């Protein structure tokens, strides 16, 4: 008997609208499924989750497992991992994909342990190679490297995938998925962690994640004071300020402005990158801008190679000149 080869995408809906990684994964899963004759399944766990069921159906899920129950009303990784484990043991998916949000990464690691399988973190690409192997592409070591990883033996093959790595499919209100409603496994409980309170924080960089224009500054700007000018530039251009890790560590900018693997994932149409070398951990957080302008003293910096316009000059001086020019042109 031929077993169905299912690709599961675990719904992470807590920050829905800003966080669209689940939809992006459904689109990618669709591509993979077409090549391996598989089925795209979404898994929705929680309480009062009908809205997301509809959303995932409209974005490419062919089947949706829904576990909607008061026991699952708290968004706790230890709890969801147990529910996901029992479902995966029953239905045996080939692949499980989870967005690399904080929640998703914690949930994925716990579920992988429970299932005794491997997990690749922060994938930036996924594909099936000629031998039909599922290849996960992820940043490796601390350097500018990407590794391609396969799991020869362990099933399911699990990966967390960085938000923004793939494009979602357009909303199709007429799409119909097979919807399978399930009870939580008998005796489901969490790991003993009790949620006392939770609240949404204020500025968390959603503006940055959704900004059409981003001004990103790196160590090459030289100082905290010089970095501050980027806010003026961002105001003039109607954009948001992003930063690299050294900038955040030096406290020139808030942690919420960090762009990259460990920070925000941005998808601007226009990117200004000033004094940034372009390390993979940084660029991994930037989904193909239409137009990139880089300023760097070093014309060979990776960021300069990636740019549409590479300006070889002092980053701070160019920022000042640009501010003056924009003001002169009446963009106030």
């Amino acid at each position: 008997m031929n077993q169905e080869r299912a690709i599961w995408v675990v719904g992470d809906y807590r920050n829905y609208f800003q966080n669209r990684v689940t939809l992006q994964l459904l689109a990618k899963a669709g591509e993979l499924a077409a090549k391996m004759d598989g089925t795209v399944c979404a898994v929705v766990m929680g309480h009062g989750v009908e809205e997301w069921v509809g959303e995932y159906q409209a974005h490419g899920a062919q089947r949706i497992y829904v576990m909607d129950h008061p026991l699952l009303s708290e968004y706790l990784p230890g709890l969801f991992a147990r529910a996901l484990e029992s479902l995966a043991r029953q239905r045996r998916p080939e692949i499980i994909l989870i967005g690399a949000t904080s929640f998703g990464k914690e949930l994925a690691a716990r579920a992988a342990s429970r299932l005794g399988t491997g997990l690749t973190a922060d994938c930036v690409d996924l594909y099936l190679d000629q031998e039909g192997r599922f290849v996960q592409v992820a940043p490796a070591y601390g350097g500018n490297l990407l590794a391609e990883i396969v799991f020869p033996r362990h099933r399911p093959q699990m990966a967390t995938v960085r938000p923004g790595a793939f494009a979602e499919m357009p909303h199709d209100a007429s799409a119909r998925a097979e919807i399978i409603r399930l009870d939580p496994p008998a005796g489901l409980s969490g790991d003993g962690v009790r949620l006392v309170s939770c609240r949404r924080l204020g500025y968390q960089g959603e503006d940055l994640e959704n900004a059409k224009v981003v001004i990103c500054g790196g160590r090459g700007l030289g100082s905290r004071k010089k970095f501050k000018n980027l806010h003026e530039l961002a105001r003039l251009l109607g954009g948001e300020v992003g930063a690299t890790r050294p900038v955040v560590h030096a406290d020139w900018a808030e942690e919420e402005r960090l762009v990259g693997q460990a920070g925000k994932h941005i998808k601007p149409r226009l990117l200004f990158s000033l004094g940034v070398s372009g390390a993979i951990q940084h660029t991994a957080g930037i989904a193909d801008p239409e137009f990139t302008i880089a300023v760097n003293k070093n014309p060979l910096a990776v960021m300069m190679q990636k740019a549409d316009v590479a300006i070889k000059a002092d980053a701070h001086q160019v920022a000042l000149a640009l501010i003056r020019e924009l003001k002169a042109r009446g963009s106030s």
Partner: protein
Amino acid sequence: MRIVVFVKQVPAVSELPWDAKTGQLRREAAEGMMDPAAKRALEAALRLKDAHGAQVIVISMGPPSAEETLREAVAMGADRGFLLCDPRLAGADTLATSYTLARAVGALSPDFDLILLGCHSADSETGQVGPHLAEELGLPAAAYVEKMALKGRKLTVERVSDGWLETLEMDLPALLTVTARAFRPRPVPMTGLEQAFGQGEVFILSAADLRADPEHVGWAGSAGRIIKIYAPAAQKKGELIQGTPKACVRELMARFGDRLGGLLAKDLSGEEQA
């Protein structure tokens, strides 16, 4: 109270040299340091020790050089360090790592109350080892912790996850991972450092000492196989502008002003301005 802290030694530079021919990382070219997030986990443990009294042991899996990191931890105030060092443990992914660390807990401190780790290591940054280990040991756990308070056996923690500030509660024994933002580490006292290198209690253990199943550790116990490793190529071929900053900006506007204006949905020509 017994606290176990897991620390890792990581390269002190973020851009590691690697050999383009073999695809191998030249780890020997980089000096090691204590993983910053793990160092904060240690600081969190030491604060509990200061406040409530505790025995703090520090465990690391890594090459012989990681002994230095453990001595630094002892100098900061940990009671004892253990290095899991064995060629058989090398090449471990997070699955094999957490299995090995769990064995070490069983062998060295089975009656622990609290286990602390960094939330992400600076070199691999998977953030997986803590949550994996929580499952291996069957513990209540929370990642990304920034504050904690202990009352009797009840631990209350605060953490930020995806823009939500959560307060969580659990009973000991438990496992936490802490972020690199909280628990700023104390400086390492010089005298402590000399002592730790002279007589500090640091012990080296092999896979056999842990009675670890050789099938589950190191490369053999890892799920993933790297089939290719490379530096991603820069794709675009852009235009280079150089000169004085002012001239560069003028040229940018002259040649690409329309394009920019289109993307910004703004008229940048400056013409109809009074």
